[in-house]
């Protein structure tokens, strides 16, 4: 199983990790990859910052006298 580390991840599947069971044997590589990818996906959105529509929304709500505009 240690061979699976650097070669195909397929062989890890064949060693049989059952769903629902925390398994230390899950390839450490693939677990690290999951963590990285998850954060990359998330950060992709974080890096977009606050879209104008939300800043505008808060500004509008913050100024009751401005509610007739637009």
């Amino acid at each position, binding site marked *: 199983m240690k061979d699976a580390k650097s070669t195909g991840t397929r062989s890890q599947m064949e060693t049989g990790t059952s769903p629902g069971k*925390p398994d230390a044997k899950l390839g450490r590589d693939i677990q690290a990859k999951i963590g990285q990818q998850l954060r990359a996906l998330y950060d992709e959105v974080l890096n977009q910052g606050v879209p104008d529509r939300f800043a505008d929304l808060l500004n509008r709500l913050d100024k009751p006298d401005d509610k007739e505009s637009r």
Partner: protein
Amino acid sequence: MALDASVRDAVLAAVPSLRAFAISLCGNVDRADDLVQETLLRALANINSFQPGTNMSAWLFTILRNHFRSEYRKRRREVEDGDGSYAETLKSHPEQYGRVEFEEFRTALAKLPPDQREALVLVGASGFSYEEAATICECAVGTIKSRVNRARTRLSELMSVESVDDFGPDRTTRAILARTERA
């Protein structure tokens, strides 16, 4: 309604993270942004129920999640999202990860049961503790841990056996749909 400046800043600061979470729930950026907007409106209408000194971000996540779940049931049929706008918005993936890997991961993530995906995102990406995630999801800490473990196991299985060539945006959409219908 005049907002306290510190409250306003805290709400604004939470927006990017709320969007990221909403996208992971909806699988669609436009719908996620509507969800965030509705969340902000609800939060500000009920700002008096926020206890100063507690975690603003967790409070907002809770509102977003509750709103999503009530709306989700109503709009279940509308989840179709045939336009692949999720893939579209996120296509500029970080270069340090290969596109193939990134696609593979996204496809696998979309296949997780919603409860597992949400737990994994809260703990693994949003940076909440298991305890905070349990509060947001209104369940026991042990339940969150178990969902996160199952999500990781399932993801690693999916990523191990699937060839990305077989999965385009249509498959992703179908996977979300199939999951939705079963949920």
